[in-house]
């Protein structure tokens, strides 16, 4: 979530979902894995919904100029936990992460931002550790490509 309000809304939704589904928890995985799974699913749903709204907003703005008041531009995201001297670089990284596919994005964030092990990520995403390793690798390759393009475009 690249927005504080969205992140807080989602946290509440996850909390409520956990509260309501606690009896469905079968203890096949650890409680934290289960909560992570709910969080990942909710986040992806939220992003999909947001993207649908974005597309709809774009379509309506094509036909009715006056409805395009809602600004769907991303805006810059500053993660509050990033060290000050790395803020600019992190902002670029999060913009690039946003361009990854859902699975690559999830695996990369859980590994590099949440600092979970590949085994834990595999349990959360219901995939094998090997698949997670390859997802992270592919995510890195894609990010390198995107950042390379950006480097050339900016003429740094």
């Amino acid at each position, binding site marked *: 979530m690249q927005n*504080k309000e969205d*992140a*807080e809304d989602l*946290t*509440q*939704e996850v*909390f*409520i979902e956990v*509260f*309501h589904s606690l009896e469905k928890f079968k203890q096949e995985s650890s409680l934290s894995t289960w909560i992570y799974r709910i969080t990942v699913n909710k986040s992806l749903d939220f992003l999909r919904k947001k993207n649908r709204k974005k597309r709809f907003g774009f379509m309506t703005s094509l036909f009715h100029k006056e409805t395009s008041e809602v600004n769907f531009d991303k805006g810059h995201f500053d*993660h*509050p*936990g*990033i*060290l000050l001297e*790395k803020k600019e*670089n*992190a902002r*670029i*990284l999060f913009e*690039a992460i946003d361009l990854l596919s859902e699975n690559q994005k999830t695996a990369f964030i859980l590994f*590099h*931002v949440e600092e979970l092990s590949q085994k834990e990520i595999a349990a959360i995403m219901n995939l094998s550790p090997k698949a997670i390793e390859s997802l992270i690798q592919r995510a*890195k390759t894609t*990010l*390198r490509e995107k*950042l*390379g393009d950006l*480097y*050339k475009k900016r003429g*740094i």
Partner: protein
Amino acid sequence: MKQEKWIDEILESTKGMHKAEPSPFLFEQAIAKVRSGNFKKEHSVHENSTLRWFLAGFVSLIIMCNVLSLVKTNFVKEKNSDEKTASAEKYFNNATTYTY
């Protein structure tokens, strides 16, 4: 080389980051939502609207099928009647030829 260094710096920018702190009232707000049962209502409103859109789509599909079949039937009827008229005319012409 310079580009690779820049990319590495970007990729390593999350190192040493801390977890984001939620607002101090977040937990209370979530508890309040659970207690008031607002969440269930929000959920059911969402489900209702999804169902409504699904039904709207379904009904419009049925209407579209009906209109298409009506148009097709009319077209076939017109074609048949044209063919009947043509054959009747042909028969009439032939018949008149015989009388003469």
